[in-house]
């Protein structure tokens, strides 16, 4: 077929598709079934014509027009832009638990590494009490020697709103970095897990040395369990990303990383709101001397149980599309 004949015969189809695209751009509501079917038919025709023009008449105006139509048609009619939206409730009750439960193995590994690192930190601090000076600084160690925890300053010197916003954004940043660092073969989440474990173990060891471990455990009883869980779960999601990158199995690596990324994102998004709740607890409940230890422990266990109950709730398998 020569160029002029091709343009003459096929141009009406392109014109109709272009008008439909323009109407679709103007319209705010979704297309009805019949409109969509008509558009899909025209899109297929345009896509075929684009492929023909690109190979037989490259560089011509008709090839340029068809490429532009095919691109916009592809963007409007395919992809994930119109994926099912179930709202926040659907996400927290279905999508998040499903994703969380699928990465339980990696979360278990993260927990094991964290416990090992904590133990190592505890042993280190017990063997070398001077380590406390390096980790906590001279002021905090001086306070411990005088029977005061450095955490008191969280509420005595800084307004609660500032403390909680600082804590929330800091914890969120740690979780986001642990997650995103997963794309570097999981090295960043591994570092976050080991460092946090080592620090916690070492700090408990130092406070044991000054007979202040009870006060420290009281301080962290309300927010600590869930905070550690959330950091570990976010880091485990990062580890899942790293695993997909390093060991993609028999699937194309790009596809394995993309799918792991979606699941890991659901896990991360499910954790983020809890960091805000925790920041409030850490500022308002944890350092308060008026509140009894039992109440703080109850708050800590209740938060942890609530999170785990939500994350581990039985969810039916996702229906095949």
């Amino acid at each position, binding site marked *: 077929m020569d160029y002029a004949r091709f343009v003459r015969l096929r141009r009406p189809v392109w014109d109709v598709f272009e008008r439909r695209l323009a109407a679709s751009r103007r319209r705010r509501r979704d297309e009805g079934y019949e409109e969509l079917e008509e558009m899909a038919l025209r899109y297929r025709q345009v896509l075929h014509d684009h492929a023909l023009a690109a190979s037989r008449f490259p560089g011509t105006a008709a090839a340029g027009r068809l490429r532009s139509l095919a691109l916009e048609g592809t963007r409007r009619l395919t*992809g994930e832009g119109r994926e099912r939206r179930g709202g926040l409730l659907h996400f927290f009750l279905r999508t998040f638990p499903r994703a969380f439960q699928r990465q339980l193995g990696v979360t278990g590994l993260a927990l094991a590494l964290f416990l090992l690192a904590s133990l190592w930190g505890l042993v280190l601090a017990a063997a070398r009490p001077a380590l406390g000076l390096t980790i906590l600084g001279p002021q905090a160690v001086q306070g411990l020697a005088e029977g005061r925890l450095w955490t008191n300053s969280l509420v005595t010197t800084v307004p609660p*709103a500032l403390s909680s916003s600082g804590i929330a954004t800091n914890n969120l940043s740690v979780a986001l970095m642990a997650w995103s660092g997963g794309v570097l073969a999981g090295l960043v989440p591994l570092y976050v897990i080991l460092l946090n474990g080592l620090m916690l173990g070492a700090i408990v060891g130092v406070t044991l040395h000054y007979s202040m471990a009870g006060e420290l455990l009281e301080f962290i009883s309300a927010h600590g369990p869930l905070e550690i869980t959330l950091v570990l779960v976010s880091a485990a999601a990062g580890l899942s990303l790293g695993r997909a990158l390093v060991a993609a199995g028999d699937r194309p690596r790009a596809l394995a990383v993309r799918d792991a990324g979606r699941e890991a994102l659901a896990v991360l998004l499910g954790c983020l709101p809890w960091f805000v709740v925790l920041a409030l607890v850490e500022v308002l409940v944890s350092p308060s001397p008026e509140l009894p230890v039992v109440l703080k422990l109850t708050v800590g266990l209740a938060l942890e149980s609530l999170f785990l109950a939500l994350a581990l709730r039985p969810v039916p398998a996702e229906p095949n599309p």
Partner: protein
Amino acid sequence: MAAIRHESILGLDNIRLDLPVASVGSRSLAALLDYLILMALALGWILLIVIAIAPLLPAWVPVFAIVGWFLLEWGYFAGFEIATGGRTVGKMALALRVVTAEGGSPGTGALLSRNLVRSLDLLFGVPLMALDPLSRRLGDRLAGTLVVHDRGREAAPVLGRVPPGWGPRELAAVESFLARARTLEDTAGTWAMADRILDRIRRDAPELLAGVDARRDPVAALRQALQVEEG
């Protein structure tokens, strides 16, 4: 201006689809614009806090500053791309758009993912984009996205008649010349070029010039001989 690179992928029904992939240069320029805007927004936010919030709630000033910066840092790119279907202000200025690896529109999850690893891409993004034929940074690989040129199409002259034996290079050259002829200031040069094309038509298919008067305006004569339409 360098020509836009087109990478062919297999679209619906395994049919070829050419994507005008944005290269590292245009993407870096768009990112630079976005970071400048981000800085301006951060400064604006601080000014707003100082002017509007400090006199009323002085204790809350650092809180607003911390939370505002956190939201801008993590939310600017993802927020814009989700709200506009894959474009930030920088991308709009350079007519770029994020699409899926298949050319479709990316979902919220993909747009969030590609922007959550942005801080790492500040280190690794440029070399990765320079080495990849599809110019993908870490975030694009994670989310399965690409950035493409998204310029609106302008009507261009299309030939309604073609001398036998003319290939796509001749067709593209004549169409391109006719599109530019309207804006060329050198009338004599433009007419000389049109005359050369008319000579070629005279040689290859003289019947197309029947009834065409090429003496007064060769460009108009060329359009008449090839039955050019705008489309």
